[in-house]
């Protein structure tokens, strides 16, 4: 339903309380750009569950990546995960997600958008004021200075259903949480709740054995931080999350699996697997 513009985001402004933003599935956004010869984190359109209908005017290349969506160019089915050359006037219609949750549209060239704090990503708050060019709604237009660089030939593996096993690193407060709750964290299959969006995913059910809340002094959180609220609810912070928090950080999702989570939707189920930093960089 929601379509936004996403690029590398605003990670360097965390000290001022600015959310990172950026694609929920960074790997797929990057692939879309590579397919059309763009720099890795050129702006892309990120769409969620249901894709947009876009009229494309002019000459250039596009590519669509991410979850599996029904794609139609002028009512003809077209493949995902490859560059498609366009000329003249074309209508791209993207249906609903058949697999995964989010898709990405890259268009070769320079997107003529005014950045805010060095990024064209749609600002999660005060969007109309901060990133008016990146506010995508019915009737929005984006100008792109079409540019075709050498296209790389490479294969992208077909999107597969996510396994649902999410690797996590112990968070700063992991060792302060009671052992019964920790056992529950790894034994339970959690469901992503309907109260989930680009800011965070709430998981059902809450940890039932978490009886004595751990109190901490507010400190930094990052996308991937899993907070444990006083009622035992787990919240996985995602790309648009705020920068600080006062709940214990029980764990952090490893970066690669954050992309996997970005393709999951309310109702999907996950389990957690504890890994070490050494494992992540092997």
């Amino acid at each position, binding site marked *: 339903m929601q379509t936004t513009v996403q690029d590398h985001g605003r990670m360097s402004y965390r000290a001022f309380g600015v959310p990172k933003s950026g694609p929920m599935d960074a790997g797929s956004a990057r692939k879309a750009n590579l397919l059309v010869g763009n720099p890795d984190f050129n702006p892309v359109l990120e769409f969620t569950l249901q894709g947009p209908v876009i009229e494309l005017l002019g000459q250039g290349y596009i590519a669509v990546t991410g979850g599996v969506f029904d794609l139609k160019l002028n009512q003809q089915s077209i493949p995902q995960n490859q560059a498609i050359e366009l000329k003249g006037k074309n209508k791209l219609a993207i249906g609903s997600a058949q697999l995964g949750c989010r898709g990405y549209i890259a268009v070769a060239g320079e997107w003529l958008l005014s950045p805010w704090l060095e990024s064209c990503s749609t600002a999660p708050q005060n969007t109309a004021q901060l990133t008016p060019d990146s506010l995508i709604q019915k009737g929005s237009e984006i100008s792109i200075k079409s540019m075709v660089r050498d296209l790389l030939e490479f294969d992208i593996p077909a999107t597969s259903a996510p396994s649902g096993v999410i690797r996590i690193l112990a968070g700063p407060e992991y060792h302060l949480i009671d052992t019964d709750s920790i056992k529950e964290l790894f034994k339970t299959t959690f469901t992503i709740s309907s109260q989930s969006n680009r800011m965070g995913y709430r998981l059902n059910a809450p940890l039932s054995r978490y009886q004595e809340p751990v109190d901490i*002094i507010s400190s930094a959180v990052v996308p991937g931080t899993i907070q444990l609220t006083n009622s035992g609810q787990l919240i996985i912070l995602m790309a648009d999350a705020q920068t600080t928090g006062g709940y214990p950080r029980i764990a952090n999702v490893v970066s690669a699996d954050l992309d996997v989570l970005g393709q999951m939707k309310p109702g999907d189920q996950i389990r957690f697997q504890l890994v070490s930093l050494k494992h992540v960089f092997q």
Partner: protein
Amino acid sequence: MIQEMVPLGDSALLVNFESQISIKIHQQVLSLVSEIEHRQLVGITFLQPAYCSLAIGFDPAKLSFLELKSTVRKISQKLISHSKSDGRLIHLPVCYQPPYALDLDEISQRTGLTKEEIVDRHTGISYQVFMLGFLPGFPYLGILPKPLQVPRKETPRLQIPERSVGIAGLQTGIYPSSSPGGWNILGVTPVPVFNGSNKNPFLLRVGDRVKFQAIGMDEYKSAVRLIAEGAFDWDTLYG
């Protein structure tokens, strides 16, 4: 000094200092920030100071967790603590009158202080900007005098007007834009702490000091007008 260094995910290192809200500990955090900034280390993606911690983002392709940890350990051995005078002192006018002082009556009942006493206490000392968070440009200021320390509201408000000045626990803060929130609102400042269309949208940064000054309704309205017209004398904030 540094108590521990732990991963905050696979691309950030969290440095924890002694776990307390105090100016002394926060100055240690700031000293580490300025040392790291000064050295311009390759591979650092962000520095995010808080009350008694510093998160250091790194690009694992350029810098490993262990390398960063050992560098920080070396730096921390020769830290010179920041002195109070290093941050800027900013004077912020606040109108503590209705209709802006949404919770002044309630705070008066809860603390047993008169409204005048609350304003006197709130404006009586300068506060340290411990961190920015929650919303872009939201400053967490402290330490609030003990008699003013009250918990957050039980039910958060759905909409707190922008520039509202609130208190919660040891902290006082300013809503940079209108938002839901649970802090007790004492008044409003005419000065935006966040202006998205400025090249630098943030009035405050971590380590600054803020002193509030009570102003009347007329003065508040005139300052709002001057700021909107671009005729406000910003130097008065730093006087």
